[in-house]
């Protein structure tokens, strides 16, 4: 236990002092803060404050070719009385070229058809469409009046909708999908980043022959568990900061979020989901860390590490793809199998719990299997680590390594 604490403290301190980890965490935190503040940032740049006093239909920065009668009155209403007018299309084009106006309109007074002119049009500029919608609305209203209906009748027809509510007894996969998918992405990142970190720490110790000093001073069990737990805690802290940045950003900018997003967030994070997520994430993460640690100790040189860990990377990525694939069919046979097998249940089970109702028996079976796998692979990892400390040089097949490692006293 004493040695475990020593190994844990040393490895944890080493992990936390890594400059790259600190910088990466800070950069991701800033990105998360920026992303969660996007609605506020967009509202700041959309100039909403200045437009408050203008009529709803006013389109700013526009000019038009002077028209007559009803068309002229409409143009003044839509574009504002102060909007510059030009005698003909040619003059309007010149004004656009000279950047006097950003957008120009030419309206045919007979049928209210129009032409919108831009010098350059940005992706988000919708002024031409807005103009068209207002003209269309006016044209329809006029037609209704001509057919004997009043303007009020027209408004009533427009607003007539069948009202209804939807009651979801289980999970709303529409609203939960985004959050569960984001949390799954987080697990994906944690496992890949820290898994590689643990395997390279061990491979480097072997490559630099530090391993021989370590195993003559303490037992491999203390070394492996100490390293895995230290990496695990470092990951929790690093990603805790990232989640914290997300929560802070969300809370600060909540008021600027569209209601659909607010509904997605508040609807998804229920206590059962959170507990399932935490259980499968933590145990699955530890399972993968042990696998990475074991594979890290099978190589003699750092350059052999990527090929040695490719098997576990493949296994994990397969779990990720399976989870993404089964999000739309959460109760299919493949999804159920994926949520029970520990290598994939780390991601598939929280996703299933997020988007559907999972039977308790399946949750229990998956949980028990996960714990059994963690214990077995921790044992195997310690054995392989011990085997690795004795074997340098030629590459050995994984099946042979496991056989020899388990045989070793």
């Amino acid at each position, binding site marked *: 236990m004493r*040695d475990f604490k*020593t*190994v844990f403290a*040393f490895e944890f*301190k*080493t992990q936390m002092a890594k400059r790259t980890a600190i910088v990466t965490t800070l950069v991701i935190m800033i990105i998360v803060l920026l992303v969660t503040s996007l609605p506020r940032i967009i509202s700041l740049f959309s100039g909403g404050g200045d437009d408050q006093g203008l009529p709803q239909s006013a389109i700013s920065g526009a000019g038009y070719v002077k028209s007559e009668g009803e068309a002229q009155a409409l143009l003044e209403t839509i574009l504002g009385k102060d909007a510059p007018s030009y005698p003909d299309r040619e003059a309007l084009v010149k004004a656009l070229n000279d950047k006097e106006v950003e957008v120009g309109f030419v309206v045919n007074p007979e049928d209210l058809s129009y032409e919108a002119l831009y010098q350059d049009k940005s992706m988000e500029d919708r002024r031409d469409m807005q103009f068209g919608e207002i003209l269309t609305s006016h044209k329809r209203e006029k037609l209704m009046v001509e057919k004997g209906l009043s303007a009020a009748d027209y408004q009533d027809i427009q607003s007539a909708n069948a009202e209804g509510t939807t009651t979801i007894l289980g999970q709303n996969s529409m609203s939960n999908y985004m959050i569960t998918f984001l949390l799954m992405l987080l697990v994906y990142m944690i496992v890949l980043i820290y898994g590689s970190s643990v395997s390279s720490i061990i491979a*480097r*110790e072997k*490559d*630099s*022959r*530090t*391993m*021989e*000093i*370590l*195993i*003559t*001073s*303490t*037992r491999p069990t203390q070394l492996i568990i100490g390293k895995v737990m230290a990496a695990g805690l470092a990951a929790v802290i690093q990603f805790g900061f990232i989640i914290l940045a997300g929560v802070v950003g969300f809370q600060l900018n909540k008021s600027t979020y569209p209601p659909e997003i607010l509904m997605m967030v508040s609807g998804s994070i229920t206590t059962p989901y959170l507990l399932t997520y935490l259980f499968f994430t933590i145990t699955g993460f530890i399972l993968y860390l042990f696998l990475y640690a074991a594979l890290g100790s099978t190589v003699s040189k750092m350059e052999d590490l990527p090929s040695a860990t490719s098997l576990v990377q493949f296994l994990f990525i397969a779990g990720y793809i399976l989870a993404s694939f089964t999000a739309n069919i959460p109760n299919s046979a493949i999804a159920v199998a994926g949520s029970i097998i520990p290598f994939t249940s780390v991601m598939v089970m929280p996703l299933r719990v997020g988007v559907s109702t999972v039977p308790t028996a399946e949750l229990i079976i998956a949980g028990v299997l996960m714990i059994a796998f963690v214990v077995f692979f921790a044992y195997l990892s310690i054995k392989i680590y011990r085997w690795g*400390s*004795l074997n340098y040089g030629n590459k050995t097949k994984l099946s042979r390594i496991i056989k020899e490692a388990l045989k*070793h*006293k």
Partner: protein
Amino acid sequence: MKLEVQNIKKSFGEREILHGISFAVESGRAMGFLGRNGAGKSTTIRCLMDVFRQDSGQFLLDDKVFEPRKMRIGYLPEERGMYQKNAVISQLVYFAMLKGASKEEATKSADYWVDRFSLNDYRNKKLETLSKGNQQKIQIAQAFLNEPDILILDEPFSGLDPVNSQVFKDIIAEFVKQGKLVIFSSHQMSYVEEVCDDVTLIHDGNIVLSGDLDQIKQEEGRGKLYLSMPDMDQNELSNQIKKAFPALAVIPWEDGLVLDTKGEDLQGGLLNWLADMNRPIQQFGAFEPSLTDIFIEKVGEKE
């Protein structure tokens, strides 16, 4: 303390590396473990340190099974390595704590050895920023942490300059004086001769020689005489002696000849013969081989 290596056998695959080796080391004496490359020195040391598990045989310390992790042992493996990205002091403290020291003891011990090897300027530097020689000193310092009772050093002198070798020899001498048990393997015979009281020579996984170095030298020189005469070349002298004493085995040696009497009492006859020759004698007396001579004789002749 007495450490006994008893009938150790070790194979890798089908190949047996150690063929039942036995020897003993006592505290207060330094033992040099010698052998050519691939003779089995590092394998023996690794079995002793429980890096490898021997196939048969046992290691005993004062008649009890030797358990390295329960002892205070300073171990310097043949292939050294430490954490390149960590500060010197933090990893020395870590290694001392793994050997059972408390944080305070570990820090004190690490500071002492950093100072002893004149590495104070590098105390808080990352290992990778140090020169190769200084890295080597840190690796050696690691073995001395936490006042070990037993020192097991595999090729400790390799890569050390003469000044640092002297510092290292002094430290080993101190440990021996304090009654510690010291084993080290080396190819550098001069260092072994200077530092060790006992030697064990291993060849092809068998012990060829083991015991007190002075006694070994005497035994290896028993019945042999050394003669050199400045005004006669080796061939002429050799021919004349062979003619006068056909029973003698004559071996050219440095500037003179080693005369192996093969147990026969020829010393008086030789003296008379030299007197009759009436020519200057540079050296005549009992022959004591150096450790290098013994090493080459025991190991080289088997090639």
